[in-house]
């Protein structure tokens, strides 16, 4: 509590620098509260000013939102609270609210003669700390200081709690672990309540915990900074506070970062998890908000194309994989081949090794670990191995690996999938050094047959992808590519697929090595896709389709949660999944979509992410399992333990610092996706 002041308001008031400059003022708080009032109605403005003066506040009035904004920008700490009208000719009051929240993070009170529930709700969702109905009475204004105090109090609380673990993160982790599908709304993005109920709830939780903050718009640049910061810190150590410091963006709060981080993690997780369960994933993915993707047809019968088209690559990839694995003629017969190649590249060598040993092989190193997280059904052991490996990687897509490193190969891929986060790392660090492993996690699930291949591609892609751009996406794509004509390109592409031994374990074995052709079709394609994305983007189209499908799925999903990530994912997915040409085109669109999601998104992306997450989760889990059952090859053992994977993935996500790569979506990588 304030020592000097007689009032018992938050202790922060005196101590926090934000309070009035003068000690005396602080003592007399709320006297001297600096209020900026914005209203285009001169009558109201004058009345408000008079009223506020009567409350002994320091009032600055302005009748244009633009003027208010520039005033605030010039003097960020010059005001304590802003009161703004809703209907203004030059700028919508809610828009101003968002700007202020993002740039200055001040409490904003909305007011209007409009007392319709809808409008008031808008105020709430946009982060206004209060909504006053006109005519405003002086009594209502007398209490506005409470919002200032409350905000500061929450910020302090965050400081205290955030040490190395952010509240939000914690929540995120918990929620993630507890329920994958509950998409991490953690972010503030939940502005659009489209998301499922869970998500909404989660969002609510987040929101309350972190004080209603105006929505932060995670632009591409911002996201890039974020990803860079996360990668720099390492996924394990990427805590909001540090990220915030690294980013050094004025106006950005720890809460913003925390929620974004949560989303990012989920996104990564999704990426790795997508590959796992093509059929299930597809379905789930499809539904995600990203309508762009379009519901993936059931994986089994999935047509990668469909998947790809839907932009839900991840799901698609999985689907494809599954289809491939299942033996369904995905029409990609060509893929199996590629997958095989890739598989080999990635992890064929040591399917088992990958995971356990941290197959970190050359490329896969990371991937392997990552794969752990991926619930590839491939070989639990492998995945497990990957997991470990992945861990070292930095939680990269470990998620996939966690699945059980079933297929070492797959794992890598899966890892990829699961670890969108990892991806970032992978990409950043290994820049494909992570052998397809990462991918495999992704692909694994899908691959059951060839999924492994995909998964690995994922991982591999990541690794291969060296291109930092979003690996997650590419990875999935690689996975999916199986069916696509997956030309061996994959290996070449980026995935270290060849190198990632882990991948081998990925079910692709099934398809690739032996039956790959038939089964893997889908899967094979995946892995390479990742790399391909980067490199292949251009050529891989077919194979990528699978991936794209899955990818898109991821993308959409990711985007939701990660906003930034998602965008990438989408784009990546899109690219990958779309077979020849489509992919590219799709990717682009995906990119666009994702980007859009990203930018627009808090709400959209978020929503999508959530959906995506959910789907991913389910996909992952299901995917892995499914893959197995359907495909003769049983790439992934059912008992692989989607759960393991999921949890691994989740953990991965948390740990994994979002790879910049992944987030390249928005601005970046998507376009790069060679698909």
């Amino acid at each position, binding site marked *: 509590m304030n020592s000097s002041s007689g009032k018992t308001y938050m202790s922060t008031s005196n101590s926090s620098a934000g309070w009035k400059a003068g000690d005396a003022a602080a003592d007399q708080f709320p006297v001297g509260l600096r209020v900026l009032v914005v209203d*285009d*109605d*001169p*009558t*109201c403005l*004058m*009345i408000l000013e*008079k*009223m506020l003066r*009567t409350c002994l506040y320091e009032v600055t009035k302005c009748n244009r939102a633009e003027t208010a904004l520039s005033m605030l920008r010039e003097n960020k700490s010059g005001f304590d609270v802003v009161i703004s*009208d809703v*209907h203004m000719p030059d700028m919508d009051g809610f828009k101003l609210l968002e700007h202020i929240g993002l740039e200055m993070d001040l409490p904003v009170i909305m007011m*209007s*003669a*409009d007392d319709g529930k809808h409008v008031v709700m808008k105020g709430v969702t946009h982060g206004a700390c209060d909504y006053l109905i*006109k*005519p*405003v*009475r*002086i009594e209502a204004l007398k209490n506005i200081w409470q919002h200032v105090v409350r905000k500061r109090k929450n910020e302090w609380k965050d400081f205290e709690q955030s040490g190395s673990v952010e509240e939000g993160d914690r929540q995120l982790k918990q929620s993630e672990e507890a329920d994958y599908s509950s998409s991490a709304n953690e972010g503030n993005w939940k502005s659009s309540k489209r998301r499922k109920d869970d998500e909404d709830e989660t969002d609510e939780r987040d929101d309350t915990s972190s004080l209603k903050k105006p929505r932060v718009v995670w632009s591409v640049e911002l996201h890039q900074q974020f990803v860079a910061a996360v990668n720099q810190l390492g996924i394990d150590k990427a805590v909001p506070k540090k990220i915030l410091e690294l980013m050094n963006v004025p106006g950005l709060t720890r809460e913003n970062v925390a929620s974004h981080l949560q989303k990012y993690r989920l996104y990564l997780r999704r990426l790795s998890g997508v590959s796992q369960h093509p059929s299930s994933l597809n379905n789930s993915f499809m539904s995600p908000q990203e309508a762009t993707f379009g519901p993936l047809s059931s994986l089994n019968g999935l047509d990668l194309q469909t998947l790809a088209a839907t932009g839900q690559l991840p799901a698609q990839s999985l689907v494809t994989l599954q289809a491939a694995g299942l033996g369904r003629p995905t029409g990609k017969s060509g893929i199996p081949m590629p997958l095989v190649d890739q598989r080999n590249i990635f992890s064929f060598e040591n399917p088992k090794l990958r995971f356990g040993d941290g197959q970190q092989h050359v490329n896969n190193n990371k991937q392997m670990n990552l794969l752990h997280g991926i619930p590839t059904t491939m070989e639990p052991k492998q995945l497990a191995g990957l997991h470990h490996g992945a861990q070292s990687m930095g939680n990269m897509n470990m998620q996939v690996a966690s699945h059980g490193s079933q297929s070492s190969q797959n794992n890598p891929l899966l890892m990829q999938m699961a670890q969108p986060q990892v991806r970032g790392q992978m990409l950043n660090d290994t820049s494909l050094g992570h052998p397809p492993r990462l991918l495999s996690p992704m692909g694994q699930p899908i691959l059951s047959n060839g999924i492994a291949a995909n998964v690995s591609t994922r991982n591999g892609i990541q690794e291969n992808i060296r291109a930092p751009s979003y690996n997650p996406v590419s990875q999935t794509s690689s996975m999916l590519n199986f069916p696509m004509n997956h030309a061996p390109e994959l290996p070449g592409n980026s995935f270290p697929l060849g190198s990632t031994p882990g991948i081998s374990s990925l079910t692709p074995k099934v398809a690739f090595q032996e039956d790959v052709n038939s089964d893997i079709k889908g899967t094979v394609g995946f892995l390479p896709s990742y790399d391909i994305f980067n490199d292949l983007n251009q050529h891989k189209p077919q194979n990528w389709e699978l991936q794209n499908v899955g990818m898109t799925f991821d993308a959409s999903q990711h985007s939701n949660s990660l906003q930034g990530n998602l965008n990438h994912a989408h784009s990546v997915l899109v690219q990958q999944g779309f077979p020849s040409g489509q992919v590219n085109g799709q990717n682009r669109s995906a990119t666009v979509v994702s980007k859009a999601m990203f930018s627009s998104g808090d709400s959209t992306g978020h929503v999508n992410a959530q959906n995506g997450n959910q789907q991913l989760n389910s996909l992952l889990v299901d995917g892995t399992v499914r893959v197995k059952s359907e495909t003769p090859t049983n790439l992934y053992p059912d008992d692989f333990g989607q759960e393991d994977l999921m949890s691994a993935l989740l953990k991965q996500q948390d740990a994994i610092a979002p790879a910049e790569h992944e987030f390249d979506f928005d601005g970046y990588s998507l376009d790069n996706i060679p698909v």
Partner: protein
Amino acid sequence: MEVVQIQRTLMDYTKSLFMEGLLDSQFLQLQQLQDESNPDFVVEVVSLFFDDSEKLLNELTIALDQPSVDFKKVDSYVHQLKGSSSSIGAQRVKNACVAFRNFCQVQNIEGCLTCLQQVKQEYYLVKNKLETLFRLEQQIVTSGGSIPMIEMGF
């Protein structure tokens, strides 16, 4: 006239405005805001209201006179007028605005035109009354008296 008398007249006059619903408690709030540091506060605010409202009414007339009426624009003007009239306590004007908005929303031209007429009527009425009120106040002040605070049982 004696200051006291004028004061009494003022009091009665003001009360009647409240009774007739022309003014509501918001107006009282304004009066309470007025103090020595701001002795003409009420007059200033109300003058602002007059200027602003007249502009809005003009715009409304023009907008409704268009071959193709932009109801969104009309609605936004009415919303503005509603906000400012409610801020100074011009209750009947505000109520007329509420009705006006309803017609806007259903895009009923006839209804809108009728409402516009009504709003104008109410506006000019309250304007008239307030101007009279201010004149009375002025008289009191020039006569050396002070304006009595109205204690209404709102």
